[in-house]
C-alpha cells in the first residue's frame, strides 16, 4: 500500500506507454479482481485516457477520487465501491 497526500493507494495500475484505450483496459482488468473498498491509481502517459478513465468510472458507478498531472504522466485515482 502506498500513501499519497493522505490517500491510501492499495493498487497501482501502470498503463504508461500504452495507447488509448490501453490504460483503461488495464484498470478494468485489475478492478474486477479487487475487493470493494480498494483504491487504485492508474498511471497513463496518454492524455486521452486521463480524461476517458474518469468518464468510465462515473459511467459504471465507481467512485472517482482525483486526477493529478505528474512528471510526464497522469495519475487517476479511483475507489471500487461496488
Amino acid at each position, binding site marked *: 500500500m502506498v500513501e499519497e497526500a493522505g490517500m491510501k493507494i492499495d493498487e497501482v495500475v501502470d498503463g504508461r506507454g500504452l*495507447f488509448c*484505450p*490501453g490504460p483503461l483496459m488495464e484498470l*478494468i*482488468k485489475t478492478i474486477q479482481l479487487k475487493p470493494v473498498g480498494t483504491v487504485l491509481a492508474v498511471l497513463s502517459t496518454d492524455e486521452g485516457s486521463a480524461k476517458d478513465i474518469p468518464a468510465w468510472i462515473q*459511467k*459504471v458507478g465507481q467512485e472517482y477520487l482525483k486526477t493529478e498531472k505528474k512528471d510526464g504522466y497522469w495519475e487517476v485515482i479511483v475507489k471500487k465501491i461496488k
Partner: protein
Amino acid sequence: MERISFVLASDTLEKLHAVALMASVAAVSQMEVNVFVTMNAITAFRKSAIEKKSFRVEGEVGRHLLEKSQQMFYDLLLQGKMMGSLKVYACGMALDLLGEDLDQYFPVFDEVLGVAGFLGKVAGGQVLFV
C-alpha cells in the same frame, strides 16, 4: 442497458480500428454492443490477412497504426467480448459472394447473420455505419 451497434463495411485499417476501439470501450462501459461486418470489411478478418498484417491503409495514421499499435482491431474486439457485452456478426451475403466460411476467418465472430437478423438485434438502439 444502453445499446449501440456498428455496421462495419470499410476494409481500411483506420476505420476497422476506429470501430473496434469504440465498440470495445462501449462494451466495457456497460453498453450492449453489436458489430455487423459486411462488404469489404470482412476480408480484413481473414486469418491470412491477419497473419501477414496485410491491411489497406488510407493515410498517415494508418501507417503508424501498423508500425506502433499494441493492439490491432481484432484484438480490441476480442478484448471487448471478454470484458463486456459485445457481439460480432459476419455478413452472410459477403461470405456467400466470396465463397468462404468462418473457418477461414479470425475467431472473433459469434455467428453469420443476414440483414434482417441484424436489424432484429439492433432495434431500438443507435446504429453507426462505417
